[in-house]
């Protein structure tokens, strides 16, 4: 029998009581943790005043933090990833540099531009939008319509004045008269598709100049078509953004998505029939690579870089890849603007803008950042690595717009290009129509499902009208 140990007994009782207390104490603590974890974030801090926000950007600012009270928390920026790692890193570094100069911690998140819409949708609903972000004007338009963006007329004006004014194309991209009475985004680069062609193959067949019309391009493509080695028409006919180049093609044939009021669909037209006969005819002749109806965004890149497409339309990523990895193919490549159709010549530019959500905690700082990023020295180097055309008059004479063939083309797009959607009305219904890829799908119905052109047009007309009716 073991002797009774009083100390052990006391300890045991103490432990027993402590354990019971601990059980009851941990419960409220656990509940508090759960509630805290699930609770909405605390209210945004008061908007800090930053005197520098109204000053034009200058390199010297980077070393002079503002005298205003330092903001607490982190400034978040969502940048749009592009194909150039160097350009992506430059943006991150520049914003980080700005943060240091302003005395605020910054978090730059580079996101896939194909995912921007979905990420923004989730962030708006969750109340977790960044303080500023990059986007296209399609998303800008949709967000502005729903009151989610901060008006930036003052910033737009100041940047324009500091840089010799905005190019007309950039100004039109955010024209308050077209987009709800205010400037909702600050353009920083214009994208545009250029035709990349295999000059080596084409010149061997006697075609030394760029095609002037789409029909001429089709004839040239047919001349060099040599499946399965090379296919003439490397244009996506799938449910991705590249597939919507067919909308531009259709418009050059005189076809229209909707009427001049942007209210009723007008796809069912003789012009659409003529266009459909042309493009499906080329498909049936075997000029399009197999799989083109399911290509993703990199389908044309892969086909061209593998030497299997004679013509593609690309905004510059193929050029960057060839420049770095395949100088031989680059030497055999020529770049030109989009050809004309029977009725029109269109060279749509795709504006990329920086915007500030209404939920931004640091609106003045965000405006200051947008002006900071417009710095000519930074943009000169940025454009040399990115694949954008200029937006400001001070940028037109940057060396890259004379030296690089793709940038020469992008400068031409910026100077002479046509606004997005033109000649159609650029409204939310048009944006939804494009997001549903109805024109590539109309072509797929004929070349994949063997539906007649007439039936495919009627189906598309009905689907289009159903979309436009929602916005009436």
């Amino acid at each position, binding site marked *: 029998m073991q002797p009774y140990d009083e100390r052990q007994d006391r300890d045991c009782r103490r432990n027993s009581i402590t354990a019971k207390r601990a*059980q009851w104490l941990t419960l409220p603590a656990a509940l508090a943790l759960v509630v805290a974890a*699930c609770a909405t974030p605390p209210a945004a801090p008061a908007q800090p005043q930053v005197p520098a926000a109204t000053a034009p950007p200058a390199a010297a600012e980077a070393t002079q933090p503002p005298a205003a009270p330092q903001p607490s928390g982190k400034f978040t920026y969502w940048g749009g990833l592009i194909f150039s790692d160097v350009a992506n890193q430059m943006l991150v570094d520049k914003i980080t540099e700005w943060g240091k100069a302003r005395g605020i911690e910054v978090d730059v998140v580079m996101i896939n531009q194909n995912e921007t819409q979905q990420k923004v949708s989730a962030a708006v609903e969750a109340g977790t939008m960044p303080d500023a972000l990059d986007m296209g004007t399609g998303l800008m338009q*949709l967000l502005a319509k729903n009151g989610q963006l901060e008006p930036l007329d003052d910033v737009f004006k100041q940047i324009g004045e500091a840089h010799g004014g905005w190019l007309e194309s950039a100004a039109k991209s955010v024209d308050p008269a077209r987009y709800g009475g205010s400037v909702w985004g600050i353009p920083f680069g214009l994208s545009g598709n250029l035709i990349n062609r295999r000059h080596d193959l084409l010149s061997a067949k006697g075609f030394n100049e760029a095609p002037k019309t789409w029909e001429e391009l089709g004839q040239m493509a047919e001349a060099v078509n040599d499946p399965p080695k090379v296919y003439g028409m490397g244009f996506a006919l*799938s449910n991705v953004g590249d597939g919507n180049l067919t909308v531009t093609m259709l418009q050059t044939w005189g076809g229209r998505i909707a009427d001049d009021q942007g209210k009723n669909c007008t796809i069912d037209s003789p012009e659409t029939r003529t266009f459909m006969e042309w493009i499906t005819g080329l498909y049936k002749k075997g000029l399009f*690579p197999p799989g083109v109806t*399911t290509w993703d965004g990199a389908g044309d890149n892969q086909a061209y870089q593998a030497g*299997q497409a004679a013509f593609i339309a690309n905004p510059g990523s193929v050029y960057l890849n060839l420049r770095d990895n395949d100088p031989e193919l680059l030497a055999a490549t020529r770049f030109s603007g989009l050809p004309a159709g029977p009725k029109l010549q269109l060279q749509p530019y795709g504006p990329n803008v920086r915007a500030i959500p209404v939920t931004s905690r640091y609106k003045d700082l965000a405006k200051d950042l947008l002006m900071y990023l417009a710095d000519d020295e930074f943009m000169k180097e940025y454009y040399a690595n990115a694949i954008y055309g200029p937006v400001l008059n001070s940028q037109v004479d940057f060396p890259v717009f004379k030296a690089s063939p793709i940038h020469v083309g992008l400068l031409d797009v910026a100077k002479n290009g046509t606004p997005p959607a033109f000649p159609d009305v650029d409204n939310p219904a048009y944006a*939804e129509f494009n997001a549903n890829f109805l024109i590539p799908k109309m072509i797929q119905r004929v070349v*994949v*499902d063997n539906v007649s052109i007439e039936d495919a047009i009627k189906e598309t007309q009905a689907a289009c009208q159903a979309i436009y009716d929602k916005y009436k």
Partner: protein
Amino acid sequence: MLMARPATLQSPVRASRISLSKRTSLLGYALVAPVVICLLILVVYPFIFGVTISFTNREIGTEGQFVGLANFIYLSKVPSFQKAIVNTIVLVGTVQTMKLVFGLGIALLLNQAIRARQFWRGLILLPWAMPAFVAYLTWKLLYLPQGGAFNIIAVGLGFGNIDFLSRELAMPSVILATFWRGFPFWVISFLAALQSVPQEQYEAAAIDGANAWQRFRHITIPGILPVVLVVVLLSTIWTTNSFENVWLITQGGPSDATMTFPVLAYFGLQTLRIGEAAAVSVAMLPVFVMMAFIGVKLLERNQE
């Protein structure tokens, strides 16, 4: 000192007016409360929210207004929606049947005393362990009509170029990739279930003269049935909701040949009209409810 002990111990009990059983119950409720609260916030609330907004014209950043069944009526007229119904049924039905047949077959094989059994069991898990994104992109590369591995082999064997992503072959291609990615879960689950069936039952049946089929039919199947039902139920829900398999290989094309509900809902989000996007997801709800109901009923019957 010894006399003082009972008084010290009894005082808290006397002070409490709640009986021991009630205190135990309260403690139980309090312990599960965090889980219940989390479920309410993370599962029940989003579910009710999703169903609610499917009846509104809500867009991102706006409250929206109640529009009744307008979203569902609009969707019913969209050709892609009708194709999504058929495609989802074809995809899920075929993939699940394949997983069941091959999963069970491979599990039975791996349950035997074969050489390097542990190696094969580990190997079979690889597709399941691989991130879905990587797995489906790899399949896409294999299927590519130009430069794809399958086509290089096909051309080498003299079959010529095959478009694995054509209208006729796109769905079978997606089905094969989805099956490949998902079947290890079935194999491992079935294998675990097979190992829990008492060996004595097989020995007794063998002594009684039961042949292999009879042992499989009357011992193996009843022994693993609860696991099979749970796996079928879970995997069917996962496969119906799977997005990457279709999106990364075909984006729903060509011409909606592989359009499924999750891909259609994703397209809905492109235009910020979350009311409509939610309606696509809610349209799948009756199917899930039915599947869950059947699964639970079968499990209950099996337990009885």
